[in-house]
């Protein structure tokens, strides 16, 4: 019985110690995050790259359509050429949101480099011969709007080994805005983010 009590007390003590040592999970203050930098890419890097791209696009006047109309923008291929598992939408979505808010651009989800982003625009048109649907509510032919511009790009990573054993990682966010009619890139932008840290840090 004494042994049992001792074991129970030991277990309780160990549990108490573990609880005391456990790091508390904190929510990041996304508006004023002074947390340490990481060698990989985090949301602050995507915010910076997106913010710089948007400011540059709006300042360039590329998106100022003559009669005040909006350009229709298609999202083309944005390649992740880094060693990290990145969804390039982390960058592109921010840009899309701000461009939409600017009143200069509307993004089409019916056309994309890898097929339509939203297949529904295409799928509902297959209801044309379906008697179960009121044909007056089915979209007529020739209503989809083709894009005027295309946004494409690449996120590139270069790792450089330093003499002192440290590692330098360079990230390049490269974007192009192409006028589809002529195939000419009307706007191009690049943001470079460099990080230097321990050679033991893994940046993927």
């Amino acid at each position, binding site marked *: 019985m004494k042994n049992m009590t001792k074991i129970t007390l030991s277990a309780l003590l160990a549990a108490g110690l573990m609880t005391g040592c456990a790091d508390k999970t904190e929510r990041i203050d*996304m*508006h*004023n995050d002074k947390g340490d930098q990481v060698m990989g890419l985090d949301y602050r890097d995507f*915010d*910076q790259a*997106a*913010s710089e791209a*948007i*400011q540059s696009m*709006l*300042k360039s*006047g590329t*998106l*100022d359509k003559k009669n*005040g109309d909006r350009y229709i923008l298609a999202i083309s291929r944005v390649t992740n050429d880094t060693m990290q598992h990145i969804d390039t939408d982390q960058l592109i979505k*921010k840009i899309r*949101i*701000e461009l939409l*808010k*600017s*009143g*200069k651009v509307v993004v089409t989800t019916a056309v994309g480099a890898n097929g339509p982003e939203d297949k529904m625009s295409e799928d509902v048109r297959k209801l044309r011969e379906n008697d179960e649907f009121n044909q007056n509510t089915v979209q007529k032919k020739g209503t989809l709007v083709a894009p005027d511009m295309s946004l494409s790009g690449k996120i590139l990573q270069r790792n450089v080994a330093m003499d002192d054993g440290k590692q330098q990682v360079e990230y390049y966010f490269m974007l192009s805005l192409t006028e589809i009619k002529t195939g000419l890139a009307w706007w191009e932008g690049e943001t470079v983010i460099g990080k230097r840290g321990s050679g033991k840090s893994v940046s993927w």
Partner: protein
Amino acid sequence: MIKKLLLIVGIVLLFTGCAANKPSYAKVVDNSLKSDITITDIKERVNSDSGLKQLQIMGENDTDEYMKIRYRVEWYDKDGFKIDAIGEKWSELPVYQNANFTISIIAPNKSATEYHLFINK
């Protein structure tokens, strides 16, 4: 006569107080920076093609040290309502010792007419 005058002044002050329009400004919000950084000029214009307001804030680093400052801007429409934009988040700017610096910003859309710009460490 004086009563009438006071009444008119009162009404005017009341309306001024209630005005939705928030006047624009740029200020250094970090006290430790206030003696190091001076805002020397603020230029504004509305781009005739885009209809977007452009800002150029010029300042000086009065110290012998290179520093990195941060800035962010909040935009408001003509009725004083805040406009959400990515520029609300802090951006970094390198400021060289004893040198001028320029912050150049474009409004997120045509509705953005007033701004509050904050400079921090």
